[in-house]
Structure formats: C-alpha cells, structure tokens
C-alpha cells in the first residue's frame, strides 16, 4: 500500500478558531495551498511544514505523520 502524508491541520485550525485564509496569511501562502495540504492533495516542502507547525503551535511530528 502506498504511503501518504496525513495531517491534522483542519482539526488544529478548528481548535484555534482559524480560517484557511487566516492560516494562509500567517504562513505567507494562498488559501489554495493550505486547502491542498489539508486535503492531502499536496505534500508541502519541509519549509512550509515547519511554518505551518509553528503557526498552529505544534511540532511538525504532531502535525504530520506518515500513513501506510
């Protein structure tokens, strides 16, 4: 079975009361990029993963994990 990068972006964003647009503004990307990462359509670079984790006050490992 292929591996995929799972995340809890949506869940964490909800906990912090942030919209996709607000999170996107915090990390300096468009809402579209946040949407694709959240839906698992796009695998972010290490740089973007770190920025997202920082914006959501989690470690990268807490935010992203590999699903087999």
């Amino acid at each position, binding site marked *: 079975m292929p591996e995929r990068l799972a995340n809890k972006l949506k869940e964490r964003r909800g906990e912090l009361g942030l919209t996709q647009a607000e999170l996107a*503004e915090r990390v300096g990307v468009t809402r579209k990029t946040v949407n694709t990462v959240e839906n698992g*359509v796009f695998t972010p670079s290490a740089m973007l993963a770190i920025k997202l984790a920082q914006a959501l006050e989690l470690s990268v490992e807490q935010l992203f994990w590999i699903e087999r």
Partner: protein
Amino acid sequence: MSDYMWGVLAGLALVVVVAAIAKWRRRDKPMSVAEKADYLSNRRARMLPALAVIFLSQQATFFSQMSGQHLSAEKAKISAWLVLSIVMLFGLATKGFWLERKEVRDLIDDENTRANRNEAMRWGFLFSMAAAIAVYILTMFDTVTGREAVHIVMSFGIAAAILRWGVLERRAHRDA
C-alpha cells in the same frame, strides 16, 4: 504595412483588451494582498481550461481553412497566433499577472502553484514530443512544411500545458 504586422497588432490588441476587461471587472473592490492573490488565483483556475479549448479550436479552424497560398488573411492569422502563443508561454514560464504589485505576484506564485506549473510544463513537453513524433510519421506519407510542423508542435505543447495547469489549479481550489 505587411499582412504579418496586421496579425501581430491584432494579437497584441486582443491581449490588451483582455487585460483591460480583467482590470475593469475588479475596479471597485478594495482587497488585501492575500484576498487579491486568492481572487486572482481562483479566476486564473477558471480561465485556463477555457483558454486551452479556445486556443486548440482556433488551431483546428486555422488548419481546416489553410489553402497554402499565403493569402493576406492567413499571414495575419499566423502572426496573431504567434503573439498569443508567446503571451501564453510567458504566462506559463513566469508568475503572470504582470500588471499587479510584486507582493501580489509573489503570493500567487506560492509553493503549490509552482508545483502545479512544473507539472503542467512536464505535460507540455511530453505533448510537444508526441506531436513532433506524429508529424515525423506524417511526413512519410504527406508533405508537411516546416512552418506547419512548428505550428502543430507548439500548439499541442502549449494547449496541453495550459489545460493541465488549469485542471490542477481548479482541483487545488476545490474544498474537500
């Protein structure tokens, strides 16, 4: 003025008219940089597949109406097609939205957009090569001029890249 120049002017006029309409449509909409980037990116996603279909259908009529006599209308069409192709190639190869502020252009060209564009360029290259092979085989049975060959290879490559980019961008904008 030569017929080719008329075609170049017609192509440039079309580009200017499209840019002016786009600017006019969002005249009274005060937006932040992020909102504007999102708005423009969304609009581009909707526009790209339509643009690819129009571009390809224009090529279909071009070839069906070509007499090979190099009439004035044909010369003008060739130049107009060349201008549009160059503009579309620039749109693919750069951040696009050349009349927008740098912050907006930088934000539109974020990580996901660059990845989508690279994938679109890959498709464009593969379709260009496939078209080149098809033309090569065709020359074994029929006469194809150099200009026609370049026209076919470029048209297929650009249309495939634009279409693929549009599909990827639309998918990216769609909520789960």
